[in-house]
Structure formats: C-alpha cells, structure tokens
C-alpha cells in the first residue's frame, strides 16, 4: 500500500513513522527544504522537496502508484487542489484532507474529497472535554462527532457506585456499553451493579456525555 503525505510537518512526521511501522510505503512532499531534511531522517521515508499542488511534483512523488493521498498543508485551497489533482489526474483511490475552516467540509466532500478532517474543531473538542470534564480517560468522536465513546472512571462515593444500572437516571441518548472491572470486561444489563473503581464505557449521541458523566460521578 502506497501512501502520499503532502505538507504539514509535525503531523506528516508522526503519521509517516506510524505508517512505516505498519509496513506501508510512504512518500512525503514538503515545500520547505529544511523540513525535508528533517523528514529524511526518518528511516524508510521517501521525501520529495516541492509544492505538492503542482502536478509535476506529484508525478515525481509517485502519485500514479499511490493508493491514499493525505493533504496536510495549512491552506484549505492548497489541500483542495492537491486532492483534486490526485483524484482526477493521477487516479489515486482515496484522498484525505485536513481543513482549517469547518464550514468547508460539505464543499470538500462535494468536490470528491473522500475524507475531511477539521483539525481545529477536533482539537478544540478534545481540549473542552479535558478541561471541563474530570476523570474521563478517553473520548472518541464517531460519525462526524455526532456520537462519542467515552471511558468514565467511577470513584468511591460517586452517585452511581453500588447502584444497579436501572437505578441511575441517565439521559435517554446514552447507554453504558461495557464495564471494565479490574481485568474483567462485563456487558451490563439493567440489574448489573456498578462498583467504585469500575470504568464505564459510554456510548452517547447529541453531546449528552457531559450530563451522563455528571449523573454517574456527581461532577
């Protein structure tokens, strides 16, 4: 599997290392020469110096043999053109673009970009979660952020501790999918008792997770 990363120094570097570890063939394209030299320190990574929105640079980077192209530059316009060139001119199977302005998501999809990630929204979402909700170890957004999976620890003295699941009033759009108890994994039913020290895996929609966490932990 051949992957092409265009622009975006820090993300490109981390992504390249992770993909190479999983045995993908990775090529990075970057317009800055110093960034290219640093990228070239990653073993096994092929690096091309140039503007990835130019067709001849993409050609040189092997866009014709590429399965997945990921546009990471900090300009939405550049990312759009990169994805369109990859798709239409070089027949890349899947294109992924990072965007700054979340409002452009629908437009990018309309223009044939397969996956659109709004970095700013994703990061602010995570920061909000971490800053305003305590004791949450992980929150994973699914389906464009409409649904989220959260892991919640139940401390001693929490409202949910030593209660059966049906005794706790959770928002309608939240279910407890799984209970992690020491090294055990329990799929709960209404009469399953929650103990202090458990970790609950919540599946929630429409941003109900904050209310659910409050009902469970009292915070």
């Amino acid at each position, binding site marked *: 599997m051949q992957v092409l990363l265009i622009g975006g120094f820090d993300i490109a570097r981390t992504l390249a290392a992770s993909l190479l570890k999983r045995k993908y063939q990775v090529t990075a394209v970057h317009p800055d020469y110093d960034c290219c030299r640093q990228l070239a320190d990653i073993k096994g990574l092929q690096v091309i110096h140039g503007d990835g*929105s*130019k*067709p*001849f640079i993409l050609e040189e980077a092997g866009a014709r043999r590429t399965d997945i192209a990921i546009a990471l530059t900090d*300009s*939405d*316009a*550049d990312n*759009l*053109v990169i994805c*369109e*060139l990859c798709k*239409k*001119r070089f027949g890349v199977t899947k294109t992924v673009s990072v965007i700054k*302005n979340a*409002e*452009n998501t629908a*437009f990018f999809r*309309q*223009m044939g970009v397969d996956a659109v990630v709004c970095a700013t929204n994703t990061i602010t979402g995570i920061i909000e979660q971490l800053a305003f909700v305590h004791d949450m170890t992980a929150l994973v957004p699914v389906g464009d952020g409409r649904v989220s999976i959260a892991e919640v620890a139940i401390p001693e003295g929490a409202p949910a501790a030593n209660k059966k699941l049906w005794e706790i009033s959770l928002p309608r759009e939240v279910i407890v999918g799984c209970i992690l108890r020491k090294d055990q994994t329990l799929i709960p039913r209404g009469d399953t008792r929650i103990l202090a020290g458990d970790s609950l895996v919540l599946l929630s929609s429409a941003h109900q997770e904050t209310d659910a966490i409050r009902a469970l932990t009292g915070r």
Partner: protein
Amino acid sequence: MDFFKAARRKDSGYTVIIGCGRLGASLANAISDREASVMMVDRDERAFRKLGTAYGGLTLTGDATDIAVLRSAQIERADTVVSVTNDDNTNIMVAQIARNVYHIPNVICRLYDPEREIVYKEFGIDTICPTVLSTREIDRLLGKSKEVKEA
C-alpha cells in the same frame, strides 16, 4: 475585451471580484465607471488603495476561501464572479465554490500555472492564463516582424 462588451450589455448585473491586485482593481474601476454594481473582496484592507478615488462599488475585507466571507459579499446575488488573487489554488477554490455551491452563471479565474487545468476544466469555469496569453502575443509579434523582414 469580450468580457467588457458582455458586461456592458447588462449593466444591472452584480459582479464580485476576489483579489484587489492590479488586474482586480483595474477591472473594478472599469465596472464602477459603467455604474454597474461591483463588490471587491481582499484579505488585506490596504489593497483597496489601488481602487480609484471615483470607485463607487463596495469593498469587503476577508479571506474568500471562507464561505462565510463570500456570503457576506452576497455572492448568491452575483451573475459574475472573477477570482484574481495572486494564489492559483485560492482562485480555483473560490471559482469552484461560486460554480458548484452558488451556481453563478459566469465564473472567471486567473491562473499563472496552466498545468492544473484538469481540476477546473470539467466545471465550466473560464480561465485566463497570463503565460499562455503572453506567449500567444509574443508569437504573433514575432510572426509580424518576420513578415516585415520577408517583405
């Protein structure tokens, strides 16, 4: 100059120009002189100095690849959108938003690099490429001087 002729026929129209460089400003001045409505969008306020003192159109400061900015420019009302910033990719993106999201009848964009043609060709966006135009003109002048020599 077909564009000027076409625009003169329907002076009631509304033109949105993106990019207040030399080309954008001179176009905006010309449209304003004909007393047709024109809106100039540039992300740098200082660029509007290039507009003439007699310029009677509107200006808006903002990044045109932000759909919200295009909405404030009332792009949906426009019958012509001209994208002439100094960045090809910005011009392509703005032209595609104008064509595919707002279905503007006339969309014109300037591109320095003709190689990216495949991206906009299929969308019915008219493009002008200074390199191609200059090449053609120089070629024509060379041809003429050759004729003179031969004659």
